[in-house]
């Protein structure tokens, strides 16, 4: 009786381990480091930053991003044109084979439009990415936004 339980537990552990590693090994597309800078509560439009890596031999195309916490989610690229900062909406985003695309300040960002609930530091926002026929569910954390001062100044 005890032995049977022991083996079944071992089996469960083994299966779990195997399943987890096999998922990771076969995970061709990874969306990581997703975060949302905390914004003034009056603000209805927020930004999202993350990293998408595509380790497959084929280009992938992000066709849609959705979140239950926002009316609309768009992919934008900040560019400077005619002396002005502009945001260009990307109807789709291609992540080339065996490469990664980084969403960061002053460049690619998720434009999270019209928030449906108050969001403060520590809150999690679920983002759903459509990549071809696959769906990726990513939790983005709302974090305090600060710009690092790289000077390491020594005044105290």
């Amino acid at each position, binding site marked *: 009786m005890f032995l049977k339980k022991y083996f079944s537990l071992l089996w469960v552990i083994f299966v779990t381990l195997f399943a987890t590693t096999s998922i990771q090994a076969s995970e061709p597309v990874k969306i990581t480091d997703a975060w949302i*800078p905390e*914004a*003034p*509560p*009056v*603000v*209805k*439009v*927020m*930004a999202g930053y993350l990293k998408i890596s595509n380790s497959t031999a084929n280009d992938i195309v992000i066709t849609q991003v959705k979140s239950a916490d926002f009316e*609309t989610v768009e992919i*934008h690229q*900040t560019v*400077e*044109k*005619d*002396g*002005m*900062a*502009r*945001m260009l909406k990307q109807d789709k985003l291609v992540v080339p084979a065996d490469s990664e695309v980084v969403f960061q*300040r*002053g460049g690619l*960002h998720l*434009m*999270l*439009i*019209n928030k449906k609930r108050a969001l403060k530091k520590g809150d999690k926002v679920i983002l759903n990415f459509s990549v071809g026929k696959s769906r990726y569910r990513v939790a983005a954390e709302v974090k305090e*936004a*600060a*710009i*690092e*001062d*790289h*000077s390491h*100044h020594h*005044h105290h």
Partner: protein
Amino acid sequence: MNPEPNKQSGAARPAFIILTIGIVAMLLGSLFWLYLRPHFMAPVQSGISSEQALPKEIASVYIPKGRPLAGIRLTDHNNQPFTEEHFKGKWSFLFFGFTHCPDVCPTTLLVMKAVWARMPEADKQAPEPQLLFVSVDPDRDTPQILKPYTTFYHPDFLGVTAEHKFLDILTTQVGALYGYEDGETEKDYTVNHSAQVILVDPQGHFRAVFSPPLQVDEIVKTFTAIREYHPGS
């Protein structure tokens, strides 16, 4: 028949003189270019060097002549008027944007917040500088929205805006640009805007431009140098 040779010699003489003058001029000219020009140019160069004497860390941003700002009629986030008189006596940093801006404006305000954290370095005695977040989206950015937005980034930052004709009086004087672009719905339009930070001196003159990418350390050091260099600051 007689006048002919006379005429010829008469014509030949001026031609000879002109030719001689021409050759001498060319010789002098080449002499000037080769040997004398550097000497003649020297005073001209030293004339430029009064501007070149700008400390090198401020040379690319400082506007030696400055430009007095006039006709400024803005409203701050406390519903108080903001005119050119409010520039007097302290340095002002101006940034143009809109509160629906998720990427560039928060980034710039966070850079300025980090700059503010280091401001005492610049000069402990001088009056505190002020930061104006100028909304170029007055239709959506009322003072009620501007105040919580701007002070979220720093309690001392001041949001200001105005109706377009008054906004344009300011933007044209400091070379800032803005424009609107349709979004999915009528209220979701976005605003294109200059990403520079403008510096106005304590005399109310447009005095420097910081261009992106904005670096905290660079702004602090450059501003410190400007403040040391600028007469009457």
